[in-house]
Each structure stands twice: as structure tokens, then as C-alpha cells.
């Protein structure tokens, strides 16, 4: 890696160097278009690690991302990166990278020219080396001298990610980054985001596909109809929603006896018995998971399997939308 300048500004892309931690802060942010409220009073603080911004289409995710990236003024509230507003402040792009949803690339350039141009526009001290590293990071070396116009959707996406990473930003915002990627590219992108997050970068990506968020990120910000519906670790969020039954698949040495014993437990709201085992509905996640071993032990039953069946993001999400 080439010499870093005196300030904390990174000089090249690549395996993340020791970062200065950046925090993206939203305080009471709203955005409306005429009478339509796209984002309604959202407050959040994003620190290092990977965060998923989840929500159905039309929830306001893109509007929120655009405000974070300084491409839209909040109608009310403030978006700041390390205390400075992102709106009308190009300086934030020293620490912030954006991969927008719209598949917009200069198709007449090769990926190498495109990423190199980004490095030069960032005025990096060694743009050629930064471009090489960024292209290597997204594994696009073999196609880097072909015009982007000839690329598949996934390859274009990787070229854009390389351009957004060329200055090794502290904060990377990605709008629906997995769109159009094949499973291998998707996996690779997920690994890359993990790596960047683990290295102390603040990564936020939006998605309406639950598995993506579930696989990449334990932390979610869930938006529904312009509001921040939930925020935090998605399993915790699910647990907090005690007014909904939690469903567990349980297998044991004696399913029928366990079913009888469980019905006496206050936290259990229903038990179903079939050939594969028990499906238990519990009103209180914590109380049930504490009670089960005690009940099994008291009845001499050995529990072979306990799987929270609806612990996927999908169910968390549908609860939130219904609520």
C-alpha cells in the first residue's frame, strides 16, 4: 500500500486498513413530496459493522439512502456523518461511498478506465494502484479491459462497487446491491461486505429480500410505510414481539408425553403432534425456552431437537407489516 497522507484519509482501496470509525446519524428525519410522506421521523445511528435496511417496495428505503448519501435534502431533521451534514457537502465523499440502485454506468468505458477515473476524481496519490486493488477486491480483473457495455448485470454491479470502494471509504451505502447477481457473485459480495464490516467499516445495504439481510447482517433497520418499524438484532426484535406466538419444532424421545406435559406450561399456547414431531406455539419466547428443559427433565424425556421455526426475517417482517 502506498504512503498514507498525514490526515486519516485512506489512500487506496483494498483490504481495509485500520479505520477511523465513522458514524452516520439521522435525527428525526422526514421527507415528503407534496402531500406524500416518503420518510417519517426516522432516527438512527449507524456505526461500524453491516446493517441491513429492510422493507417492502415503497417503504422509503431509497429515499432514506439518498438522504444519507447527500442526494436529497431532508424536509425535516438532520443527516450527519461524523457531525457534518451530508446535504450540500461534497467533502463527505472522502469517507462515504455509494452504490445506487439504478444501473447507471458509463458503458463506453472499460471497468479499468471507470474505476481509475473514480480514483483520479478522488485525487488519490496513487490512482493506478487504488484502481488495481479495488478491481481485485470485486474479482473483476479478467474482464477489466472490456467495455462495461458488454458486461452482465452482476458484473456491472461489481464494477460500480469497485468504483465506490476505490478510496476505501469508512461508510459504504448500497441500494439493493444483490440485484441481478448470480448465486456465486451474491455469495462473494456477501463475503466482501462481511469483511468490510468486520474491519470496522460502516456498511448499510437495503434490500427487500429477507434471506439476503438474514445472511449478511444480524442488525436490521426495518422500514414500513416510511417509518422505522424496528431496529436492532433481528432475533431480538422477534423476541420482543411477545404478542405473537413463537413457533418451535421439537423432537424428543417421547413426543406424546412431552405434548401433554407442555400443555400444562403457562407460556405454551398450543401443541401439534404429527409424525415428524411437535410443533409448539409459545406466547413468551424466554419463558418457554427456560421451561422446556425443566419439563423434559421432570418427565424423563430427552429433547433431541429444538428449532425456532419462524425465526427467519420473513416472519419478523410479516409481523411488523401486519402490526
Amino acid at each position, binding site marked *: 500500500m502506498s504512503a498514507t497522507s498525514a490526515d486519516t484519509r485512506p489512500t487506496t482501496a483494498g483490504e481495509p486498513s485500520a479505520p477511523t470509525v465513522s458514524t452516520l446519524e439521522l435525527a428525526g428525519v422526514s421527507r415528503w413530496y407534496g402531500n406524500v410522506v416518503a420518510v417519517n421521523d426516522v432516527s438512527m445511528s449507524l456505526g461500524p459493522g453491516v446493517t441491513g435496511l429492510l422493507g417492502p417496495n415503497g417503504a422509503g428505503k431509497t429515499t432514506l439512502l439518498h438522504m444519507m448519501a447527500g442526494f436529497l435534502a431532508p424536509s425535516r431533521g438532520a443527516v450527519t456523518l461524523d457531525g457534518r451534514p451530508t446535504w450540500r457537502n461534497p467533502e463527505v465523499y472522502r469517507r462515504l461511498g455509494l452504490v445506487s440502485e439504478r444501473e447507471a454506468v458509463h458503458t463506453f468505458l472499460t471497468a479499468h478506465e471507470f474505476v481509475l477515473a473514480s480514483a483520479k476524481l*478522488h485525487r488519490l496519490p496513487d490512482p493506478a494502484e487504488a484502481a488495481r486493488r479495488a478491481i481485485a477486491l470485486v474479482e473483476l480483473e479478467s474482464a477489466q479491459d472490456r467495455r462495461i457495455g458488454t458486461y452482465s448485470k452482476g458484473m456491472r454491479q461489481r464494477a460500480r462497487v469497485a468504483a465506490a470502494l476505490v478510496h476505501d471509504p469508512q461508510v459504504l451505502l448500497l441500494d439493493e446491491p444483490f440485484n441481478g447477481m448470480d448465486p456465486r457473485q451474491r455469495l462473494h459480495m456477501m463475503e466482501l461486505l462481511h469483511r468490510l464490516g468486520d474491519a470496522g467499516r460502516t456498511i448499510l445495504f437495503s434490500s427487500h429480500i429477507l434471506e439476503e439481510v438474514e445472511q449478511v447482517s444480524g442488525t436490521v433497520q426495518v422500514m414500513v410505510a416510511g417509518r422505522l418499524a424496528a431496529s436492532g438484532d433481528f432475533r431480538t426484535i422477534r423476541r420482543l414481539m411477545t404478542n405473537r406466538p413463537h413457533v418451535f419444532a421439537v423432537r424428543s424421545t417421547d413426543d406424546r408425553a412431552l405434548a401433554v406435559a407442555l400443555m400444562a406450561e403457562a407460556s405454551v399456547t398450543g401443541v401439534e403432534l404429527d409424525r415428524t414431531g411437535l410443533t409448539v406455539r409459545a406466547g413468551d419466547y424466554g419463558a418457554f425456552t427456560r421451561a422446556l428443559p425443566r419439563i423434559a427433565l421432570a418427565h424423563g424425556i430427552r429433547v433431541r431437537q429444538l428449532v425456532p421455526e419462524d425465526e427467519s426475517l420473513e416472519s419478523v417482517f410479516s409481523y411488523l407489516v401486519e402490526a
Partner: protein
Amino acid sequence: MSTVSWITARGLFGRRRFLLLLPLPAVLVVLAVLSRALGVDPGEWGPAVLVGLGLAVVLPVVALIVGTGVLGAEIDDGTVVHILTKPLPRWQIVLPKLAVATGVSAVTVAVPLYVAGVLADSVRLGLALAAAASAGALAYSALFVALSLVTRRPVLLGLVYVLIWEGLLGNFVSGTKVLSIQQYVIALADRLAPTGLLEADVSVPVAAVMTALISVGFTVLAIDRLRSFSVAGETS
């Protein structure tokens, strides 16, 4: 050449609509050559070809195609975001783009006007037309680059200005000529090479001051609008 101007030029020449630039200047030269070859009196064909076609059509239309192409086209297809997500003061984006637009328009228009001017009268008229058209290219480019940032339909609005305001109203309402870049170019060219072929309706000081005002004013407007550039507010 700065990276912004390099990308701008690549984008301009890489798009098919660049080919639209070629026919108009060609027609201008062909008409001038034909008139001269057929021995028609320059007093008859000069005003029609030089002003009617060259300054009233070729210059503004070429400047419109190029001026809306350097920034408007990038806003249309979304690639402008790549340049905007860089820590560059916005004037460092607008000025190189304006320079490319002015340079390309000026060269595309000044060369055929020079040829036509020489054929109609003298080298001096050719040079005067080329110089005045270059100044006009700057003013038109600043206007059309700024239009790209204040409206989603810069080409349409640009055409309205060129065809309705300068072309149509200019013939009936003399007051509109004070706000007509075409008139400034005519006045400047006529001052540089006085002939009977060009008829100026505004004074030279007005033309010079207004050309400068329009160039600077719309450039400042473009820089300010680019600072507040918002991505279209679709929610998804």
C-alpha cells in the same frame, strides 16, 4: 485534460446523437460553395446563409445538442451520480463540462462559418464570424448546461428559446432582441468586420456586456443547482 472533461468528452463522442452535429455545418458550407460557384451576388445569399442558417440555426442547435449532452444526458441516465459522489467542489464539475461544450460547439460552428464568411466576403469576415460564434457558443452552452439542471426537459426548453424567442418573436417584437444571443453574435461579428451583409439590432456594448452576463450568470446558476442536486425522489 481533467478527468471530468475526459469523461465528458468520451460520453459526448460515444453517444449516437453526436452524429446529429455533422449535417448542419455541412449544409452551411455546401450552400456557400454552391452560391459562390454559381456566381450569385453575395449580397443576395450572404445574409440568408450566414445569418438565416449559420447564426440563427446551426450555432444554437449545435450548442443545444452539445450543451444538453454534457450534463443533461448524464442526469438522464443516472451516471452523473458517479461524478457527484466525489469530494469535488461543484465548480470543478461544471467548468470542465462547460469548457468541453463550448469548445466542441465553437469548433463545429466556427469552421463552416469561417469558410462561408470567406466565400461571401473576405477572410476578415470569416474570422469575425468564427470569433463571434465562439463567444456565442460560450453563452449558449452556459444557458443550456444550466437548463439541464433546472428542468427535466432541457432540450424542449432550449428549442423554445431558440425557435420561439429568438426565431419567431425576434421578428415581431423588437424588444426581445435585447435578450437574444443570436443578436449579440451578429452585433459582435459586424463590429469586427463591418460589411453590408450583417444587420445588427443591438449595440456592440450591449452585445458584449450581455454575452458576458449570460455566460457568467448561467454558469453560477448551474454550479449552485448542482450543489443542491437531488436524485429523483422515487421511493422503492
